[in-house]
């Protein structure tokens, strides 16, 4: 299914709820973040992908093209190019490497953000199981 389509989001919610352990994988984290995915081909538009987690349980996964999700005041805003997010989701590049290589920018408390790198990598590994067409 097409990356970031409604169907993909629906599957992502199901698979993460089914496969991620709130304690072991998501470290009982409570946070929210918006991934701002820029330069999506073919027309170069941006997409806002919002994820909220409470006590290690993903409570919200929302997608928007207008930027209205920015009003949700997420704890972190992660911005990067489409290709970078695809590389991360495909497991070709870790979140931290993307950060150190300046491929993604993070707004928010960076020390706290770094604590979420491992849970985020778990989330991405889980999303990798979806047969995705990029």
């Amino acid at each position, binding site marked *: 299914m097409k990356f970031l389509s409604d169907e993909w989001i629906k599957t992502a919610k199901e698979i993460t709820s089914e496969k991620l352990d709130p304690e072991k994988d998501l470290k009982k984290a409570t946070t929210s973040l918006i991934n701002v995915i820029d330069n999506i*081909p073919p027309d170069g538009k941006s997409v806002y992908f919002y994820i909220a987690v409470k006590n290690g349980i993903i409570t919200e996964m929302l997608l928007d093209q207008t930027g209205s999700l920015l009003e949700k005041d997420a704890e972190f805003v992660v911005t990067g190019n489409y290709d970078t997010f695809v590389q991360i989701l495909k497991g070709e590049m870790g979140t931290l490497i993307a950060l150190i*290589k300046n491929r993604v920018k993070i707004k928010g408390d960076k*020390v706290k953000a770094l604590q979420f790198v491992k849970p985020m990598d778990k989330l991405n590994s889980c999303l990798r199981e979806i047969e995705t067409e990029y």
Partner: protein
Amino acid sequence: MSKDELLTTKKSDLQEAVKIAEKGTHCGMCKIDFLGSGVCPAGKKHGFAAYWPEGRMEIVKALYSDKIKPTEELKRIANSCTVCGICDKQCNFTTHLRPEKVANALKEFVNKLDDKVFEKIPEDKTLQELRSIVGEKWVSNDPAIIVSYTKTIITPDAGVNFYVVMPETTEEVAEIVKYADKYNIPYLPRGNGTLLAMFIETLLAKAVSLEKGIIFDLRRLKKIEIDEDNKIAKIGVGVTAFALQKEAYKHGMRALVAEAEAHVCVNIASVGIISTWGNTYGWGSDNFTDATLVDSKGNIIHHSDEDLTNPYSTNNNFTNLTLTPSTIITEATVKLHPIFEDEEAVLVPFEKLDDALDLALELAKRNIGLSLAVISSKYLSEFICPTNDIAEDFEYIAKNYLKFNFMVDVVCDKYDKKVVEELADVIIDQKMMKTLILGSPRFASLKESEFLKILSEEKNPLKAIFAGPMKDHLEKALDPSPKQIAKVYDEDLQDFFEKVYSKPEMTDVVWLHAFRILPSRLMRQRMFMLRGGYIVADKKKIIELNNMLRTIGDKHKLSNALGFISFLENGKFAFVEYDYYFNHLDPDSHNRLNQAIVETLQMELKIKGLLPIEYVFHKGLFRKEHLFYPMPEGLSDDELKILGEMVQTVVGG
């Protein structure tokens, strides 16, 4: 015979060349005319790394390991070598290698192949687009061109899915970045690649290299404009330290530069310019007045833009760690400094680091010495000796017989010289340094000398040999002359090296400090990795750091030594470089080095008042004041745990 069978048969001819190529360490010195021999004519004409000696070495390795197949471009590269021998002269001075044999073997190999084996690499849309920006000649996706950048921006296992582009102007850089951004193509800029060559040999390889996309080779932005009235120089990012210094000297001035082969703008943007001259000239933004950068959207930014938010601001938190640049620097306006007629280098030898630091800190606090550092006998011997073996024996004699482990190295005017002479027991002056440089082979040959063994039993052997009547005897015994030192080179190169060492600058210690042509000898057929960083200039702290780095190096069985300690801000801060040497061809050596890097970083981060070298990466554009005032506290256990996980993630890719 099939194409592949044909290639396999011919490939065995490359075996000897591969042995030489493997020893290459990408010091990048072949791209500057530091001996007056000229540079590789093919490299100068065609630009891409593939046409330079270091690139040919990577090509030969790639052909031999089947990473690439012959292409039409490969044929052009191989046949562009005029067999002029310049590369042998330059490389032999620095690394003691003979790269012309590699170029010759490649040429012979290619010319023995049937025309049918050469592939033509198809064009694609990106190649066409890049060509429309920089011109057909200055962009390539040919595997022979791509592999020549192995180890200086791409890792050996990265494949050849890249483009190399050589823009000539800031506007071209901006256009390429806009294109790359629009089509989600990763990219990374590169100067001469020497620092990257060092890091790609370590666990940081994946974090510092490019995995696919566009390699910016920035050598063509070569503008140098000296403004004598304002004592500044406007330079393009392709200008090397050697080229800038040469131009500045013509105008009676000096620039703060890093090693000769390094690109000045790249140094400014990456680690700042770390130098013994920092005692007077400073670090980071102290040395440039304007910089031109291209941001990730292709916008051209000038540091002098009025609407720019403070471009000199940064912080020293560990979360600010970044290993690749967020912008591409294309130009800078750098400060130039006066040269005094009475400048002289004075070296004060010591047995103990403790004593060397006492003198150096005293001088730094009083702002004495244009250039000031404590350097180890390891550095001295590596720099001045023409081969690794001679350097090893030279260092043995210095340490074991003369009790000469460290020296305070000062470039000063006549007034400062008087102060140094008053404070020091023994000094090695310019004349004695000339003796040691030209007489280094003979000095090293005294390893088994009974005379030196007896001398070592003197109460103060340093004083006996450098300040007493023995001084004249030593000078006579070493018979220092260009002819003498030239004898250590291969017979066909001896005349050339006799002429090289006859040039006054080759034994002029001030010139050698300013032009920095000798440090690349640290990469003489082996690699090293630097540890340490900026630290508050407290003697106890510096010694503890030095001892900790030595203990970890020894634990991991790495040859190790202090490199140098330089000073900033009137002796308030010091930069400590400690080096781990390793065999880049030995995987076990790599593993031990990586363990030592992780362990030293963990230890360094606990030290209050230390800014490890990793924190300085890509901070050179910023004010040192934002990094040093205040210096960081040691990390808490929680922060160390996060950092430990970060390191693990980086190591794991």
